[in-house]
């Protein structure tokens, strides 16, 4: 089999060795050295909530199981805590691999995931950053709650934080907004 050949297996999913190569190239991580010791997953604080825990995500990458890897909810709930990365006996920066899977998923399917609300939160965050160069937490939270249709659910908390002096309504801005905008424009022209 040529390395670029895709094969379809009995459950309809596609095995694509090109995907393995792509992840290796994007991350620089030696994912093929993983021997499924499970140290990453045993220490992962989010493992109980994950459909595809980190050891399995690495396995999917090794096997070229692109669709299974990119459809995983777990790539979105991974907290990027780096517990797995510092413990892997083969020194694979697994958090970086999870992060890369997240970006690949975003590039190919946008917010088409059951964890769409997390995608939306990140998008709104970057929106705010693009506009001001800094992020105004108050505005970001309000926009997120509106978008997800849960406005007022956290109103009590928001008001409390406002009166505690923990929230400001006036967004801080960088002076050189033009430069931030340029960085965003140039970065969006590149792939991920």
């Amino acid at each position, binding site marked *: 089999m040529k390395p670029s050949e895709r094969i379809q297996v009995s459950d309809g999913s596609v095995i694509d060795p090109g995907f393995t190569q792509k992840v290796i190239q994007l991350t620089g991580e030696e994912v093929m050295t993983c021997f499924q010791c499970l140290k990453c997953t045993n220490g992962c604080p989010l493992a109980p909530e994950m459909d595809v825990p980190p050891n399995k995500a690495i396995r999917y990458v090794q096997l070229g199981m692109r669709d299974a890897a990119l459809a995983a909810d777990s790539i979105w709930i991974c907290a*990027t805590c780096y517990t797995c990365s510092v413990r892997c006996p083969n020194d694979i920066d697994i958090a970086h691999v999870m992060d890369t899977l997240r*970006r690949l998923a975003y590039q190919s399917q946008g917010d088409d995931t059951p964890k769409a609300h997390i995608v939306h939160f990140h998008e709104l965050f*970057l929106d705010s950053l693009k506009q001001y160069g800094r992020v105004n937490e108050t505005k970001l939270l309000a926009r997120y709650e509106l978008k997800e249709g849960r406005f007022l659910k956290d109103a009590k908390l928001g008001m409390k934080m406002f009166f505690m002096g923990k929230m400001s309504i006036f967004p801080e801005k960088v002076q050189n907004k033009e430069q931030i905008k340029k960085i965003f424009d140039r970065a969006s022209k590149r792939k*991920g």
Partner: protein
Amino acid sequence: MAIQIGYFPGCSLHSSAKEYNDSIKASFGDLGIELKEIPDWNCCGATAAHSLNEALALALPARNLAMAEQEGLSLFAPCSACYHRFLLTNRKLCASEELLLEVNELIAPLDYKGSTEVKNILDILVEDVGVKKIKESVKRPLKGLRLVSYYGCLLTRVPHGQASDDQENPVYMDMVVEALGAEPVPWPSKMDCCGASLNITEEAIVCRLSSHILDNAQAVTAGAVVTSCTLCQMNLDLMQSGTKPEYNHPANLPVFYISELLALALGHDFPQGHWKKHFVDPRGVLEKLGLT
């Protein structure tokens, strides 16, 4: 002579973590540290940038690193999450000329050469200032305060290489706590994950993780928690706030920033409004120890 350090407060220190910013500014001068704010700093991009767009995740920190370099400054980021973004970006850019070139194209006309040193608050307190000097500067020892040091994830978990402190069993914060005259209490959750920014999107996960950490702080009969990360402070404090039915952990433990305790021990008093920025008001604990 004062040590000059480039200061990157980051977005949260100007809003939800103002008390961190205020206490750093109140205390660092006493230790011979002169903070020079990085001019016109921008947000590091946080989880959002590295989740959606790698070019942004590198370019946004790089703009700040380049501006610090122009001023001949290091870059001190108090928030652990910002710190980690800067540290990783810096390492990547220093390891590959090709990548540095690409990122410089994104931030042009700025041109980063790779010489900025990235620091967290414990690097400064333990390595630049030194616990001996801290100890000598203490005017009001925090005697009788049993503290659990909560490092969280991002202060020392650096992939492919050593962080300044130990990656699995860090001790720098305990060393500072001891120098301030308080009692560092050993406990099993010093590096457990609080759930970080998932507090907005996946509340239940953060409740599970943060409650477990508070359970362990209670189990060792700590008097308070001390941390250096804005997300850690927020999550542990919020879990005890009673602002929602889920946020009802009974520990009632104040969650301090290390710089707040530092400022207190150095003899500074905060204005009335300061402690109101905590959900669990620390004044009860401080009064009992004669510290307010």
